[in-house]
């Protein structure tokens, strides 16, 4: 009986980058998992939490917990949302023992996509093929809250035809930061400008990351700058053959 994996695609992927969700499903199915999509899912609550609206965040987070309560594994195409669930729910439900207990029981089963592949599925080579030059952007929460650094690079190294070229300061924030990007658009834009320059220096055709929200910011800025460079979520790279 193959293990079942529930996708939490995140609200951003659901709304704007459905292909990322499909790619993730494809890779997981290829590895023999049975993939579910619990339809009642919406958002993890992070936008409200990060903007200081804890009550509203709790409301949405409780909904999340109820949707995924019985999942064997939850796989997420975002380091940021994963960390929200596995780390910040702890803070959010400090004074709600019942939800806290639920969150703690769920947390060990919630995985960021690349970590799931490496640590649960135990694969580096998923049989992907993408003849292209790519560069990898270290998304902040994946990097600093989940310690994801070498993992995605190891997965990329196994993609046939793919050449990975590191950009300068790949660990510097792209400037998204959720509501930060619209409260302080001038600062956010200045940050992503540096990122775009760094990407261009590599001569890569694609920028890859494990967080769709960073890619939204980066692609939005690439387009505005008239750049031909495209962003791809790691799942999209690993699904191509």
């Amino acid at each position, binding site marked *: 009986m193959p293990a079942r994996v529930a996708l939490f695609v995140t609200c951003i992927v*659901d709304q704007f980058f459905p*292909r990322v969700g499909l790619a993730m499903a494809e890779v997981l199915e290829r590895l023999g998992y049975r993939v579910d999509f619990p339809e009642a899912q919406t958002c993890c609550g992070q936008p409200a939490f990060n*903007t*200081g*609206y804890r009550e509203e965040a709790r409301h949405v987070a409780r909904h999340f917990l109820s949707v995924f309560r019985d999942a064997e594994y939850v796989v997420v195409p975002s380091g940021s949302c994963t960390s929200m669930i596995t780390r910040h729910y702890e803070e959010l439900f400090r004074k709600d023992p019942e939800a806290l207990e639920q969150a703690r029981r769920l947390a060990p089963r919630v995985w960021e996509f690349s970590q799931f592949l490496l640590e649960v599925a135990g694969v580096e080579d998923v049989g992907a093929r993408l003849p292209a030059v790519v560069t990898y952007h270290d998304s*902040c929460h994946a990097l600093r809250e989940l310690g994801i650094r070498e993992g995605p690079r190891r997965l990329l190294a196994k993609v046939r035809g793919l050449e990975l070229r590191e950009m300068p300061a790949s660990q510097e924030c792209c400037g998204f930061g*959720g509501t930060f990007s*619209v409260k302080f*658009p001038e600062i956010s834009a200045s940050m992503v400008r540096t990122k775009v320059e760094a990407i261009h220096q590599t001569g890569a055709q694609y920028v890859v990351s494990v967080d769709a929200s960073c890619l939204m910011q980066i692609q939005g800025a690439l387009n505005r700058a008239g750049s031909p460079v495209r962003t791809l979520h790691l799942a999209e790279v690993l699904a191509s053959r």
Partner: protein
Amino acid sequence: MMTGYPREQIRRTLADPRLQEAIYSATGRLMEHRRQVVAPEVLPDYQELREQARRIKEHTLENLDAYLEQFEAQVRARGGEVIWAKDGPEVADFVLDLARRSNARLLVKSKSMTTEEIGLRERLEAQHFEVVETDLGEYIIQLAQERPYHIVAPALHKTREEVGEIFSQRLGVPRENVPERQTRIARTVLRQKFLTADIGITGANFLVADSGAVVLVENEGNARLTTSAPRIHVAVAGIEKLIPRAQDLAVFLKLLGRSATGQPLTVYTSILSGPRRQGEWDGPEQFYVVLLDGGRSRVLADRDKRQTLYCIRCGACLNHCPVYRRIGGHNYPWIYSGPIGKIASPQFQGLTEDPWLPFASSLCGACAEVCPVKIEIPRLLLELRAEIVKTQAREGQNRWERLGFRLWSWVMTRPRLYEALSLAAGLLAGEGSDQGWLRQLPGLLNAGPLRAWLDYRDLPAPGRSFRALWRQRTARVRE
């Protein structure tokens, strides 16, 4: 929530290519220097040291009363005096009184953020005393009549040409753009000041409870002169500067220079306790330590956020902050800029004084990664955001945003409604194709956060959602 946000001023900073380059490259150099000296090959116990430093600070603040008493007794025992000051005016009153009593005219200062915090120099100058900064960067800033741009490098934003200009204008010397020559000009002026100064004022990097010592760390030797040339030495320090024992210094000195400038150890470390004793051939005749509260005991009362007081003012969080690296040091409301400023200002200056400040962060976490005393800056930012939102709700401010989030949470807990709305958005955006990008939105829609996004970036057009595609896919598989 954005009350007081200096948007125009920040736009000017961002649009100034010279300034942008100056900040980004200076902080970049400091980052690189630090990286080299904390690398595991060079300092294998770096993480362990950070943990120790944090624990020492934690322990000291838990028992601050006892350590302060011990410190005071030790200073007294060595012939010095301790003065307790509630705030800036009390510090200034003490120094003014001392200056008058001892017929002082000229005071020299070494770099100290604590005295900047309370505007001590300005307070003394207002009473017609001459006060001269002797740290080169700080001296430049004094001549330029600005405030420090950076905790460690006050003149970080000034090019050598600008320094040449400032010197020639304010000192009447020929224009000189070579840094070494500029240093020589400053040295000549400052040497004269050291020789004639009556009082030397310093801050303190650490106060050691078990030996009543004031520890000063610096690179130019000016602090050493400030504490030895004049007959009176006054050290002004916040009460959080205490550490229990002289041996704890080993931990902090290893971390401070490395984190600040990438030096394994700063050039000069002075450990000063008490005035000159009989038989000693240098040191001041009188030795005072002014202990400043200045809001610290209030911050101390919050058991979680009190870690803000662990800060050893190394500046590493500023250097690594992508926001500081673009908006620079003068767009923050207080003297402490960068990430530490974002958590300190609301606690010291009042939560809603500059409500935008804790929000002006992408929460990237680069600061916490490098902070030598492991202050959880991003977590405290989140905490402060929540407190600000609560306070504003009580005061009926920021209604629209609150309403927005309430509606959002209402929709996000009703999957069917959420789906219907996302469908509507897709239709509104035009064709149902996925992954199209919008450059602008029509009329009324082009407002608020959408507008803020679109002013600088394209926006992905909502097309068919994942759940719609997923349903199609499952249906296909079933066939």
